[in-house]
C-alpha cells in the first residue's frame, strides 16, 4: 500500500491508535523510515501525551496539598462541630417554618447511618476515628507509587483477561480474544530493551499478514519506546502475559493457546519462529 504524507495526515487517528490493517501498517512504516516530517509529527503526539501525563501528576499533587479542616484534636473537633451545628440550625429553621413535617435537619441527614457498617459514626470520638482512618489510608498510598514500577496486578480491571491484558500508546486495550483467528507472536521487555533489536529483525522478516500479528509488550509503564523500533509496543496492565518473563517470546495459535516459547537471545531465533509459524500453517 502506497502511503504518503497526505495519507498519514488523513489517517492520523487510526495511526495513533494503532488501528491500521497489516497492509496499511507496513506502508506506513516504510513511509516513516524515509520521511522526517511524519516522524516528527508522530513524535510530537508522543510529546503531547507525556506532557499531559506530567500535567496530571502535577495537578493531582497540588490537589492533595490543599488544606482542609482537620480533626486532629478533640477541641478543634468540638469547636467545628459546634460551629457546624449552629450554622445547620440557622439554615434549618426557615425550612422547618415552611414544612415542619418533611424537613430533616442537615446534621441528621449526614449522621443517620442505615446499618452498623456505615462509614459515618458520629458517636465515635474524633481522635479514635482519625487514627482508624490513618491505617487503611497508609495502605492506600502505595497504589500511587507504582508509576515507574512494573504495573501491578492491582491495575487490571475486574472484567479483563488476567492472562493477557495490554494497552497501546493511545490507551486502547487488548486481550487474547482480540487476536482470535490470528497467530500472535509477542515478546516481553523489561527495564532494558536489550533484545529489542533482535525482535525488530523478527518483525522485519515476518511481515504482518491478516492472520499474523507481531508485537512487543513492555512490563515497565514509563519506559520510552527505544529508537529504531517499528514493531508495535504495548504496555502490560497487570496481566500474567501467559506467565512469560522479560526477554522471552511466545507464539500463540489462532485458537488462543500458546504454541511455542523461547528466549529472544537464542541464536536460532528466526529459525525457531519460522518453524513454529509453519507448524501453524503460515
Amino acid at each position: 500500500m502506497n502511503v504518503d504524507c497526505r495519507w498519514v495526515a488523513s489517517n492520523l487517528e487510526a495511526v495513533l491508535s494503532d488501528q491500521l490493517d497489516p497492509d496499511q501498517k507496513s506502508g506506513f512504516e516504510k513511509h516513516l523510515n524515509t520521511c522526517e516530517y511524519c516522524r516528527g509529527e508522530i513524535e510530537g503526539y508522543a510529546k503531547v501525551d507525556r506532557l499531559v501525563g506530567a500535567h496530571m501528576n502535577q495537578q493531582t499533587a497540588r490537589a492533595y496539598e490543599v488544606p482542609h479542616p482537620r480533626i486532629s484534636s478533640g477541641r478543634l473537633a468540638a469547636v467545628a462541630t459546634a460551629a457546624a451545628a449552629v450554622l445547620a440550625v440557622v439554615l434549618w429553621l426557615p425550612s422547618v417554618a415552611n414544612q415542619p413535617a418533611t424537613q430533616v435537619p442537615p446534621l441528621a441527614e449526614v449522621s443517620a447511618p442505615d446499618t452498623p457498617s456505615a462509614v459515618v459514626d458520629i458517636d465515635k470520638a474524633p481522635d479514635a476515628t482519625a487514627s482508624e482512618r490513618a491505617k487503611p489510608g497508609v495502605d492506600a498510598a502505595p497504589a500511587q507509587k507504582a508509576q515507574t514500577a512494573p504495573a501491578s496486578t492491582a491495575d487490571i480491571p475486574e472484567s479483563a483477561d488476567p492472562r493477557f491484558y495490554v494497552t497501546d500508546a493511545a490507551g486502547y486495550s487488548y486481550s487474547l480474544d482480540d487476536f482470535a483467528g490470528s497467530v500472535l507472536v509477542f515478546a516481553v521487555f523489561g527495564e532494558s530493551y536489550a533484545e529489542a533489536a533482535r525482535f525488530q529483525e523478527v518483525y522485519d522478516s515476518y511481515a504482518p499478514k491478516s492472520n499474523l500479528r507481531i508485537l512487543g509488550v513492555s512490563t515497565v509503564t514509563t519506559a520510552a519506546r527505544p529508537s529504531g523500533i517499528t514493531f508495535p509496543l504495548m504496555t502490560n496492565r497487570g496481566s500474567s502475559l501467559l506467565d512469560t518473563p522479560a526477554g522471552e517470546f511466545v507464539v500463540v495459535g489462532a485458537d488462543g493457546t500458546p504454541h511455542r516459547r523461547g528466549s529472544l537471545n537464542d541464536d536460532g531465533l528466526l529459525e525457531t519462529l519460522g518453524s513454529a509459524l509453519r507448524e501453524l500453517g503460515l
Partner: protein
Amino acid sequence: MKTAGFEGNFELAAVEHRPFLMQIAVASTRNVDDAEDIVQEALMRAHRGIGNFRGDCPLRTWLARIVVHVSINHRRSFVRRVKRWTLFSDLERQDSEGKTSAFDAPDRSKDFDREAMLDVGRQVEKLRDEFRVPLLMLAVKGMTIPEIAAILAIPEGTVKSRIFYGRKRLKEALKL
C-alpha cells in the same frame, strides 16, 4: 446492607478507590483545589445511594461516575465544606507526627521545564470540557478507553475521536 451489587465494607472500598477517584476529580474539575472536596462529597453520596449500585460495572466505575457528576455541579460553599469535613470522617493519612502525606507519584513534571508545564496547563485549560476530560482521564494510571466510555456514558468511538481532537489541539497550540 444487602444490596444487589455491593456486599462488603463501604469504608474499605472507599479507601481503596480514593486515589483513583482523586485523579478522576482532577481530570473532571475546572478547579483542582476542589478535587478533595469533590471526592468527599461523591463518597458521601455514593454511600447514601449504594443501594442503587447493581454491580453491572466495576464499583470504581460507578464511583467515578458520581465524582464526574459532582465535579460538574460543584459549588463552593463554606457551610457545605464544613459539613463535609467535620461530620463525614475524612480519609486522611497521617503519620506519627501528625503530618499528612502528600501525593506519592514521582513528579514527572521535573522532566520538563517550568515554562513548558505552565504552557501545558494553560492550553489544557483552554480545551472544552468534552475534549479535556477524556484526554486527562486517559493519563490516569490503568485507565482504558472502554472505562472512560463507561464513566462518561458515551460510546467508545466518541471517546477516541475526542481524545484525538484534544491531542491535535494541544500539539498545535504547544507547537510540537
